[in-house]
């Protein structure tokens, strides 16, 4: 089984004037293809910084990051944009759909930047929306969709370029419990069909639906292979 994410001695230092913050202090981590992980930790633990680095939105101060075998920590901005486009899919807490575009057009967006021809774009976008159960809502604008439906559009957008890694940042944070379950079902199905998923969450119930929990504390990995059913215990302790 191939390794999708491999982090070696990753540090991230933020300097704000004289104050230096060590957001990440020597992270060693790897995620294999087909895994379904939750990154957890209290606020300020470094999990968001970790997410940004894994998502190629930010670079580590030091260390090596291999994504799907490519060393990405040294790549220039333009190459990182292409990596994000081709290898990664993002799902955000606030959905981040473009309000002037329909569901179908929102899902087509990553393929525009990938240079996919228009007809193929349309077909693949429709396919992705059917996969998340929104075949009835292709031409709706985000304002005409419920929160759960908007998040499904966002998931369709994240998977449409067939990424090697799906990154989700508190994907259910803005949703009620019923909708949360539906969204997590979709993540589960995607993972079952082979998609590698890494999800940042602070909700124990959400983390329990994954298959591996990585616990962050003070910029370090406190626990890299926690079983999901143990989450409640640590959070309580």
């Amino acid at each position, binding site marked *: 089984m191939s390794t999708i994410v491999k982090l070696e001695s990753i540090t991230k230092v933020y300097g704000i004037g004289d104050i230096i913050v060590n957001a990440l202090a020597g992270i060693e981590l790897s995620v294999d293809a087909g895994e379904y992980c939750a990154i957890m930790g209290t606020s300020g633990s470094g999990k968001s910084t970790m997410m*940004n680095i894994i*998502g190629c*939105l*930010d670079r580590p101060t030091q260390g090596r990051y291999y994504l799907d075998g490519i060393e990405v920590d040294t790549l220039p*901005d*333009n190459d990182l*944009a*292409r990596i*994000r*486009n*081709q290898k990664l899919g*993002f799902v*955000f807490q*606030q959905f*981040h759909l*473009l*309000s*002037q*575009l329909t569901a179908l*057009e929102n899902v087509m*967006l*990553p393929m*525009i*930047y*990938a*240079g996919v021809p228009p007809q193929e774009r349309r077909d693949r976008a429709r396919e992705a929306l059917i996969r998340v159960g929104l075949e009835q809502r292709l031409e709706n604008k985000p304002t005409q969709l419920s929160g759960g439906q908007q998040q499904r559009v966002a998931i369709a*957008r994240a998977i449409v*370029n067939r990424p090697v890694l799906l990154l989700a940042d508190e994907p259910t944070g803005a949703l009620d419990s019923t909708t949360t379950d539906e969204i997590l079902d979709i993540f589960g199905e995607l993972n079952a069909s082979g998609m590698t998923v890494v999800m940042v969450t602070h909700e124990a119930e959400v983390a329990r639906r994954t298959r591996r929990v990585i616990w962050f504390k003070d910029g370090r990995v406190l626990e890299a292979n926690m079983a999901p059913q143990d989450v409640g215990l640590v959070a309580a302790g």
Partner: protein
Amino acid sequence: MDWMESTNMAVKTLTSNKLRTGLTMLGMIIGNASVIAMIGIGQGAQRLASEQFESLGPNVLFVTPGSQGARQRTTFLPRNLVWDDAKAIANEVPSVSGVAPQRQSQIAMTYGGKNRTTLVMGTTPSYLTVRDFDVAKGRFINDVDLERNTRVAILGADVATQFFEDKDPIGERIRIRNTSFEVVGVLQAKGSFLGSNQDDVVYVPLTTTATLLTGRTSPFGLDLTFISISAIDEANIPAAEFQITNLLRRRHKITNEDDFTVQSQKDILRIVGTITGGLTALLAAIAAVSLLVGGIGIMNIMLVSVSERTQEIGLRKAIGASEQDILTQFIIEAVMLSAAGGILGTGVGIAGILLVAAFSPLQAVVSPVAITLAVTVSGTIGLVFGVVPARQAARLDPIVALRSA
């Protein structure tokens, strides 16, 4: 991402907020409309003035008292042109075919209880041929009138209708400055010349003007307002100009500066061209300022748009847009705003020109050069003023952008 995609995206964004797009374009619309309308109206005025002078015929020369140099010195009183000068030109200059001395003054006149103040022109029979007028009824001034100072008047077409309406004016008597004149002729309508109505004129013999109406003011003879002269043909104009100038210098005993000016139709056209051309340039320059203001308006709105669309920019970057993609998208938006404003403004400007043309004697001049210039300039303004906001957008950090909820 290619240009087509960027353009599609820009269209989607611009059409999704129509009010803002419209208001932003308004600046460019007004700027372009005013540039095109001002150049059009300026050129229309230029053409109108030129055509009026061209209607005089290419063979016409004018001699007026005073000169450019003399007028600059206020103490210098130019020697008047007198009838003898005109006679000398007619007799001694071979390249001249007709000479019409003219002495004119605004004078009050009455007929049957109706009053009006009209230009009274004292002249000689050659006026008809030199200035190309035709008699509609009766006759014009003849040599006998000049010799005998007869009290006859020939009416311009408008004066005739104002005083007599449908009645035949021939043989009627009008009073000009309390002297009774017999109407012996009416001229055919000619229209206006540079805003003055050529049909609102009463013609009397030159000699009669001097003795009965205005009096003599020059010790050198019967003084004139100016002399209209026709050359034999267009080729003889330079010769006529030269010969007239020499003759008058001799007669006026000029040693240094001329106290008269000889101008051909071409000279006048050149002067008119310079004046109206300058006027057009001035109008266009003023209008161009509004074009600049429109460009600044676009930059302003684009800057607001960048900060409002921070999340959109962050998202686009997260899903794979490069800095170049974002830059291109925002620049295209700015260029489209200004170019669309430019095209609409061109329409408004042309409409304005046609409107002015419909309600004034100015002719409609829709200048293709002005249109190309305005649209190109507004597109360029969009590009220039779009770069700053677009760079700001392209440089946004996606992490910060995505978190700015």
